[in-house]
């Protein structure tokens, strides 16, 4: 379960988390379903770890 903050950016709402050495923002504009938001954050964290791993380098 991610504890996230929200940030308004014009008409966009970002969910923001700090995990490990990552700062991540995902667009949750119009999303009311907490499970979907958590899933989106979870996928993003996985993506961040892949971006950092240099697995393709």
């Amino acid at each position, binding site marked *: 379960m991610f504890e996230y903050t929200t940030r308004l950016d014009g008409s966009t709402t970002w969910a923001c988390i700090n995990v490990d050495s990552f700062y991540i923002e995902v667009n949750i504009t119009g999303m009311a379903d907490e499970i979907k938001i958590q899933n989106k954050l979870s996928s993003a964290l996985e*993506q961040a770890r892949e971006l950092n791993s240099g697995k393709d380098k």
Partner: protein
Amino acid sequence: MPIKIGSTDINEIQLGGNVPFESVYVGADKVFSRPLLLDITVGSQAIASGTIEHGYDVYGQMNLGTLSYAQAQPSTDWFNGEDILICAWQEYFSSSTGSFAIRVEGNVSNSDSAFTTLKVNNLVLNRTDAAFFQSTSGTGWTVWQWSPVNTNPWSGTGNTDRVRFERDV
């Protein structure tokens, strides 16, 4: 609304000299902000099982494609003057899907002052549609990643394509 010539984007505005305007206003409304124009010669390379990267990537040990500035840019004007390390489409060919990402060195904020829109040929990507990532480890990096982007936006490997970053209009 940005001003255009017909439906054509404006790259630069000058009046009676050769110093381009960074922005143009009509009254209080900004109607032009000088874009960042890059010419990327597209490289293509398998980077992982099932994944081919197309575009420009000099992150880590990668040396894919080339990037040049299409018009002179004050170095600190964009991305805090940080280097662009990746501007590429990743093709996941087993699933016929893909994603597009840009990565810049250091930590750049996720705001309209970074950019609002990225255009690669017919592909138009809004910043706010991307997932945003930063790592503060080491020198740090910043990534905007759009997913899915299932069609290769580049015109072909070895070709040089224009990449256009816009902001603030």
